[in-house]
């Protein structure tokens, strides 16, 4: 019984707290500003925007 109460209390208190803290961190560290910049993260100088990858089927082979 004590173990279960602990888990329940922990879940009820810690998880929303963790969610709120991460939301606070995200807001403060500017994750929600410059949204367009974040959208560019999968791209870089090596594989810039406009460059398709994985085009390996069909006419592209050999």
């Amino acid at each position, binding site marked *: 019984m004590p173990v279960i109460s602990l*888990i329940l209390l922990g879940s009820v208190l810690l998880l929303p707290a963790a969610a709120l803290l991460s939301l606070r961190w995200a807001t403060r560290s500017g994750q929600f500003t410059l949204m367009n910049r974040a959208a560019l993260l999968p791209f870089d100088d090596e594989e810039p925007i*406009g460059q398709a990858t*994985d085009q390996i089927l069909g006419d592209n082979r050999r």
Partner: protein
Amino acid sequence: MNSTTASKALKALLPGDFSNETGRRAHLAEIDASCRVPVLFFFLSGLLWLLIGTLFALLASIKLHTPEFLAGQEWLTFGRVRTVHLNTVVYGFASQTAIAVAIWLMCRLCRVPLIASGVITVANLFYNIGLTVGIIGIFAGDSTGIEWLEIPKYATPIIFVSYALIAVWMIIIFRLRTERHLYVSQWYLLAAVLWFPWIYGTAQVMLLVEPVRGVVQAAINWWFAHNVLGLWFTPIGLAAIYYFIPKVIGRPIHSYYLSVLGFWSLALFYNWNGMHHLVGGPLPAWMITVSIVASVMMLIPVFAVAINHHFTLVGHFGKLKHSPTLRFIVFGAVSYTLTSLQGVLSALRSFSEVSHFTHHTVAHAHLGMYAFFGMVMFGSMYYILPRITQREWPSNRLISVHFWASALGIILYVVPLSLAGFQQGRLMNNAAVKFLDVVQFTLPWLQLRTLAGCLLALAHLAFVVHVGWLLLRMLEPYRKPVLNILTGGEIPATTEK
């Protein structure tokens, strides 16, 4: 003070000084090479479990229309065969490929190589030991009898600890990131690796270690089972979709704002959904009602994701012809929308009255786990494997066989069984129809399902053979790939011997 010391110590493990200050960022090929061994191990053991899971899926499917098939031995009875199928594909195939994809994505988006990758490989070894013990336990009759948690409790701690090790490593990679901004995939990945131990641990303790009594067991059971899908597989699947669609077509996501809204609304609503499995059960009505409301609220994240992916892809559909990754991923993304809408419908009391306890639910589960998640994982593997092995896929034909057999197979599985399952429910609710007549009605549909299962098995065999062929190419001397799998360039001389 401690956190900076720890962070310095971790940074010392990196093969170079990667930071915003020095401006040195890891090359893509460098990151891929650092992930090679652990990611390969997870993929290969995942595929091995996929083959085992497929075999037992076929046995279970055949037994449903031909019950005398292999009924002589108790370890091959339906109750065990079906349970083995579920646990091998969920914890063997799906979870292991999910972990591999998550590690690779996390390293790429944080722009750091994987440090001390041996730790992940060891975790993989123990994960598989735990799972093997668990599956043998199920065969031996030790199943706990709780859906999605059948693995006996002497095996779960091994799985849990190896999983925890992986989760910690993911967070360490995240701490070492050289990019200050997070991409939406990282939100999903971080959330998933933290949510899963919480739901798995809570369910283990409350159902197996110190079991609660009565209907609360059912409540926790379905809270867990639904959240495995919603808080573990779905976020990793979406993280992969959010990365691969822009990456393959070379165009940023349509609306980043919408993707963030999708993430936070999923985080808010998904974890309430489980009780809709218990519509009509002896639970307080408010618990079920809350769950139904939250299930309907899931329309927000689902539409956010669907709209975003569609508008990202508009004008680039031609690339589906050339990219195996995009084919599988788009198939998965569309299935995600469909399975979510079907899920919302099934959560409603009026619909659930008919569809509950029928094959409709089975079809829905496969639409989610296979047509969405499984296909997204296949697509991810098509992208990741050539990059970590630095070898090209040997055969276009095998890719086509894999795609068409799995796509047609899962459509043939889901569509007829959804419809037949609904009719089955209507017949069962009709007091004038004898139960055996309902059973007779389902027979041809169950046989059709076995046929669909054979197609899926063919697809898996084609893929496993292809992966084996790709790995054989690693034995040959390295040749510069002809195709643009390595658009980021070769591995720099410093890391390739």
